[in-house]
């Protein structure tokens, strides 16, 4: 890989827990972080981001790794420096090897051995039977601005979606306040909107806030809600070249009292 910089910022975006499950698939890399059983965040790096990419197809390449250490290692030459990156993993129990070389300096390189652990199973939150009830495509910077405006002390984030005006209405409840943001589908930040029948979903605000770092580096966000209340956010990363990286968040709804 020519530059580990984007990968590093992608990792930082999902770094709300100490360790992540690292999974190398033939299509690309996937790193997953879970918070409790409520939020699951994944970073996807499709294989075309790498100049060379080989995965043995007869074994599952999957292990647990400290995401903080991984991102510090990727950033070892500082954030101003573009450095090329090579990654190796031999097999279960062996460390993940990284070799980094900055592009502006020829006489220096870093190699890292990051210890790995056997991965715990990753929650399967997607339920094939639950159908999708709404889908929104939003501009990420505008959505980030909206989330940043919401008072931090609020606990509940309520999302009302309906085919009628106002199509999207976000209500937050705190200790002594209730605030409401309406967002019709004609709004600049809404790129597409589909919803057949009105639906109301409630989430914990701090779960929603965990996507903010990822939003800051993304251009577009796709928000999907399924009939069981699970929210899926897919974020497309901003990148200079044509290749893409993604992050994905599953957020479990609050149960009704």
């Amino acid at each position, binding site marked *: 890989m020519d530059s580990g910089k984007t990968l590093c910022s992608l990792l930082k975006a999902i770094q709300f827990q100490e360790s992540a499950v690292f999974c190398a698939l033939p299509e690309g890399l996937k790193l997953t972080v879970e918070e409790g059983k409520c939020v699951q965040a994944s970073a996807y790096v499709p294989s075309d981001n790498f100049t060379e990419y080989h995965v043995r197809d007869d074994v599952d390449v999957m292990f647990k790794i*400290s995401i*903080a*250490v991984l991102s*510090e*290692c990727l*950033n*070892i*030459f*500082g954030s101003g*420096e573009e450095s090329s990156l090579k990654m190796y993993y031999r097999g279960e129990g062996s*460390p993940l090897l990284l070799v980094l070389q900055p592009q502006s*300096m020829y*006489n*220096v*390189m*870093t*190699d*890292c*051995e*990051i*210890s790995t652990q056997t991965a715990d199973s990753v929650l399967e939150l997607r339920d094939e039977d639950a159908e999708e009830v709404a889908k929104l495509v939003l501009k990420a910077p505008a959505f980030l601005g909206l989330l940043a405006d919401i008072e931090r002390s609020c606990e509940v984030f309520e999302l009302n979606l309906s085919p009628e005006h106002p199509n999207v209405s976000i209500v937050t409840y705190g200790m002594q306040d209730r605030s409401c943001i309406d967002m019709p589908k004609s709004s600049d930040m809404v790129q597409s909107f589909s919803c057949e029948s009105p639906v109301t979903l409630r989430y914990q605000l701090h779960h929603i806030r965990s996507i903010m770092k990822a939003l800051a580096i993304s251009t577009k966000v796709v928000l999907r809600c399924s009939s069981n209340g699970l929210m899926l956010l897919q974020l497309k990363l901003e990148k200079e070249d044509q290749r893409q990286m993604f992050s994905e968040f599953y957020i479990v709804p609050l149960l009704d009292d």
Partner: protein
Amino acid sequence: MKFRAVMIDAGPMREFSNVVTIISKLSKECVLRLTDDHLYFIVSEENSGPSPPVLWCEIPQRMFCSEYQMIGLDEEHKDIYMALSSGNLARSLVTLKTAKSLKMKLTKKQCPCLTLEIETPCVLSQQTRQVTHDIPVTVIPRKLWSDYHEPRIPDPDISIELPSLKQLRTTIDRMRTMASEVVIRASAEGRLTLQIKTDMAKVSTRFKGLNVEAFAGPIEHSDSETEETQANEDMSRICYCRVDAKKLSMFLSAEQIASNRTVCSVVHKKLVILCLQTDENVKLQCFISGIVY
């Protein structure tokens, strides 16, 4: 005792201010020693009695001062030693970067003071402003002078020129988040390796093609250490030292001083000496003792 010095050149004044800023970051207190031809800043390990200094900085007065007069204690003891707060000094000298001149003198006010008179130009008119700072100092009695002598250092096993301090500092700072100790390893072939090892990770950054100034090998290693050696390396030409990452990073903040070169000397397993020299012949030396288990 008398002391009076004047600086009028912009370059040296800027550098003087930078040097003092670095010292103030490394330590709250420092000792200023004045001799006929040098100013010395000396920092000893904080909260410990007489111990070898951790930082030793020499500033040749001729390169910096247009006027320099001093009279020491008596004929035999021509120097002046005083202790002062490096923070006070650094803050007073902040305006020096744009100043026209700096006058320093030793004065007797309520207590002994180092008085700084800084003349700064006015943007709009020809007039200048003059700011006077009085920094209280403690004059060090002669019987304690020996605590501040230049440290006697064992001969280093290797002296190697360092790569860009800025680069080095970013790397050390990243490593510092993962481990508190760094192993510096230098080889007679011009390779320098910084390495950390924790339960989570082992990270080594290698620089190669550096200038080796001196090498007093071969280095003797006990058998237990050689197990990790890579087969293609001749261990007798490598020495290393384990040091505190925070101290190393603090010295590396000296990157702000426009240095012409920095040399790292290692006494195998015992001591790392970092020595920075600028175009104005300021010599800043830092001693970081090794950690041995």
